[in-house]
């Protein structure tokens, strides 16, 4: 029995009888009808056809309003799905009520992985020792070559003067952490600061901004304030932040850690 090249439809042989022609045409037409239908499996307005193999197709029904076409989890077929968020980041407080800065020189906030960005707020921080800087270390990392930063540092005596402001640039040099601000030369002086960090789930370079300052408690001196932007080069995702006092155990203050995701 003769067949067609591509779809193997049955065709009459040259020796078949003319009286069998009608049946042969019906068989051929039926085969063609089946094949054409297989190639156009859509049944409903909005259907999309896609190949399930090199010769077969299937239909995917139209989605609902606002959905977008994407590849399914098995990477085998298209599917309609609700579009991902439009880039709006929502922040959640990860350490409910904040964590007290007391009883230790380093407070490590751990168990915070899985967020795209972080916001850290340190308020009323004070150390048992004077002139204590609030220092942040992502993942506790103290590698000097991992911190890149530039910005402004001001270390006034008792009041702001133009001469006390200095630009501060640190490019793979002596920084092994991010300093937010320093208390004055009186142990009762306090400092406050904030820190925002992007790229928490990245295994490449991350970015951050920080700002903070100490107060000139009772006219005490040697406090400072900083405003800096920087990069942090670590091939690990972020899982913790160290909040350190540069000169001694914390004896006052609270740190709040927020995680941000889309």
């Amino acid at each position, binding site marked *: 029995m003769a067949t067609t090249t591509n779809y193997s439809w049955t065709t009459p042989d040259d020796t078949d009888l003319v009286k069998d022609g009608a049946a042969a045409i019906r068989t051929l037409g039926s085969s063609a009808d089946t094949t054409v239908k297989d190639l156009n499996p859509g049944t409903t307005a909005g259907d999309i056809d896609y190949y399930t193999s090199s010769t077969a197709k299937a239909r995917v029904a139209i989605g609902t309003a606002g959905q977008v076409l994407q590849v399914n989890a098995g990477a085998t077929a298209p599917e309609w799905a609700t579009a991902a968020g439009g880039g709006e980041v929502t922040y959640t407080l990860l350490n409910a009520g904040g964590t007290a800065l007391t*009883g*230790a*020189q380093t407070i490590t906030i*751990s*168990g915070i992985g899985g967020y795209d960005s972080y916001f850290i707020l340190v308020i009323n921080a004070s150390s048992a*020792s*004077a002139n204590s800087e609030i220092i942040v270390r992502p993942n506790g990392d103290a590698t000097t070559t991992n911190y890149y930063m530039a910005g402004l540092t001001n270390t006034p005596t008792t009041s702001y003067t133009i001469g006390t402001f200095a630009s501060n640039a640190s490019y793979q040099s002596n920084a092994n952490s991010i300093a937010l601000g320093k208390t004055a030369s009186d142990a009762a002086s306090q400092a406050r600061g904030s820190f925002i960090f992007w790229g928490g789930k990245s295994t490449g370079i991350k970015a951050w901004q920080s700002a903070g300052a100490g107060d000139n408690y009772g006219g005490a001196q040697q406090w400072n304030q900083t405003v800096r932007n920087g990069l942090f080069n670590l091939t690990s995702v972020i899982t913790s932040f160290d909040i350190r006092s540069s000169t001694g155990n914390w004896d006052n203050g609270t740190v709040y850690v927020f995680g941000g995701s889309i």
Partner: protein
Amino acid sequence: MLKKKIVNVQTNEEIIVDLTKDEISEVELAQAEAQAAAKAQAEVEAAKFAEKAALLERLGITEEEAQLLLS
């Protein structure tokens, strides 16, 4: 004694450990720098005070009188 407190926000577990030798050295260095800066500042202030007192004595006026002149 310098300590490190590790707070896991998922389990609410808190662990307190001693700082490592390197961490202690880092804190001690920061303390020494802070003390040196405070001492230098105090010396500057003391020198300024002595200079001011000497000037007032030479002029034969009190600090209040000097402030009055400058007001």
